[in-house]
């Protein structure tokens, strides 16, 4: 199995605050990986370093066997890593169609674009509209869409870049509980067609266990657990620091009731 992304000894410090502490992880091609952890645990910092928004204090990041540490977001996107955002980053004054038009247009002119991509932009846009169920909103201003649709558009924009590695930052946050599964179903189906490796940050444990093959649990900048969902979600440390259950799990040395607020 090819390794798509490899982080080695990754560290990030903001003055006295350690946002990333010795992160070492390998992501395999075509896998779907979930990143969990409480706020401030380091998940978004990790994503920000992978996508070039932040430069690591030390350590390296390799993508498809190429050192991308310290590259700019633009360069990294051009190599095939795209991301969506916690707060959807859209072109508020443009319509849904125009948003995608920009996204597809940029992708069609990138170095990785297939020959003749520029002739097929319109088809691409329509495909994305269909896959992400945006047809009913095509002429609507992106700034005025309902939250779930904004999220979908944000992800569709990321997918428009034809990524090989897709990072989704809390794709279901801000979406109502009953909508979450529908959204994730749609996204995952759309992605399976493309053949993409997916990493996504999520707080909803149900979503994470349903859609991922593997979970990375973060805490205080470190990865405290890495493995299959069922196994990770049972681990004591994960239950303590991420899920927030203070019932000691089987075999937990701490025992006793240390309740967290």
């Amino acid at each position, binding site marked *: 199995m090819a390794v798509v992304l490899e982080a080695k000894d990754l560290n990030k410090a903001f003055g006295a605050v350690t946002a990333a502490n010795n992160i070492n992880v390998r992501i395999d091609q075509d896998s779907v990986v979930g990143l969990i952890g409480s706020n401030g645990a380091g998940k978004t910092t990790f994503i920000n370093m992978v996508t070039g928004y932040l430069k690591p204090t030390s350590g390296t990041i390799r993508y498809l066997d190429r050192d991308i540490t310290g590259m700019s977001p633009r360069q990294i996107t051009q190599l095939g890593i795209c991301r969506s955002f916690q707060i959807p980053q859209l072109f508020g004054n443009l319509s849904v169609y125009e948003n995608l038009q920009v996204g597809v247009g940029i992708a069609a002119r990138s170095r990785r674009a297939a020959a003749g991509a520029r002739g097929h*932009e319109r088809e691409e846009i329509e495909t994305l509209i269909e896959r992400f169920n945006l047809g009913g909103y095509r002429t609507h201003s992106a700034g005025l869409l309902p939250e779930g649709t904004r999220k979908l558009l944000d992800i569709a924009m990321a997918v428009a870049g034809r990524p090989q590695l897709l990072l989704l930052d809390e794709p279901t946050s801000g979406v109502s509980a009953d909508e979450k599964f529908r959204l994730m179903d749609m996204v995952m189906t759309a992605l399976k067609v493309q053949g993409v490796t997916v990493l996504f940050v999520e707080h909803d444990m149900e979503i994470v266990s349903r859609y991922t093959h593997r979970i990375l649990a973060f805490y205080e900048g470190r990865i405290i657990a890495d493995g299959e969902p069922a196994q990770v979600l049972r681990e004591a440390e994960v239950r303590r620091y991420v899920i927030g259950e203070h019932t000691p799990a089987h075999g937990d040395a701490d025992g006793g009731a240390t309740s967290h607020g």
Partner: protein
Amino acid sequence: MNQPAHTLSGAPARGADRTTLVLIGALVVLLVAGPLMPRWAMFMLNVSLSWGTVVLGMMLLMRTGLVSFGQGLYYCLGAYAAGTLHHFYGISDILLMLLASVLLAGAVAFVLGFLLAKYRDIFFAMLSLAFSMILFGLLVKTSALGSTDGFGLSAKTFAGIALGEWERNALYSTTVVVAFIAAFGVHRYLSSHQGRLAGAIRDNELRVEYMGASVRRVIHTNYVVSAALAGVGGGLVGITIGHVDPEMAFWTTSGEFVFIAILAGTGSVLAPFLGATIFETVRSFAYEYSPNTWQLILGVTMLLVIMFLPGGLWSVFTRRKAA
């Protein structure tokens, strides 16, 4: 490569073609009407169209999310370039002078663009203002260029052809054609992918970077284009009025360009020319009948437009679907 523009409806826009049709129509009408109109009208149209070209450049920048308070820099450079050819080298050819205007303005903008493309909002406005005031300061203290008085210029030939009594007409026709080329060019540009990036950058440049496009490159390009437009506008005005002076680089001149841009709105490449014509017309009459309330009128109008017509006068003509 030639993707037609899309309106908010997502369908291929007939609007794009409509603008082109109007432009061609205006070109024809203005050229034909030239010999028929009184001198003062031709003069005013000359100045209006030239200023419209400058404001067209401003509009391009505003579509990219930037308000420049220093277009006077390039306007003045364009004027002085044309003037210098005449004053120091005895060249009185319209074409050569305008070429000089565009090249000088474009070259300076290319250099300054590396710097300015890194700034946004107020700081972009301030820095652009600073550069125009630097030129002002330099010109005022340069006696070889006439200091505060500036100097005169005139154009006697077009591409080598002596104009004689057709001088005024030739200048006017040149202005009309230049304005047309500028408007058409910007229109096509804005309908292209890179033109669409301008609006995207204005809305969310972070996202543009995150999709792999270079924000800096688009801004730099648009900045140079807007400067070239300001330069050619300055050259045309210089030749029309027959005079150039440092006031062209003073910040209040740039302020007037900003005013027209706001007044006109960014909805169409036709808007700047409409706005400039209205501005020039009102200004000429105001100067004559009530010179001490001219700025008062400007100020009040600007406030009204900002508060009630944020899309400028042009938004009166368009119906934008919200959602």
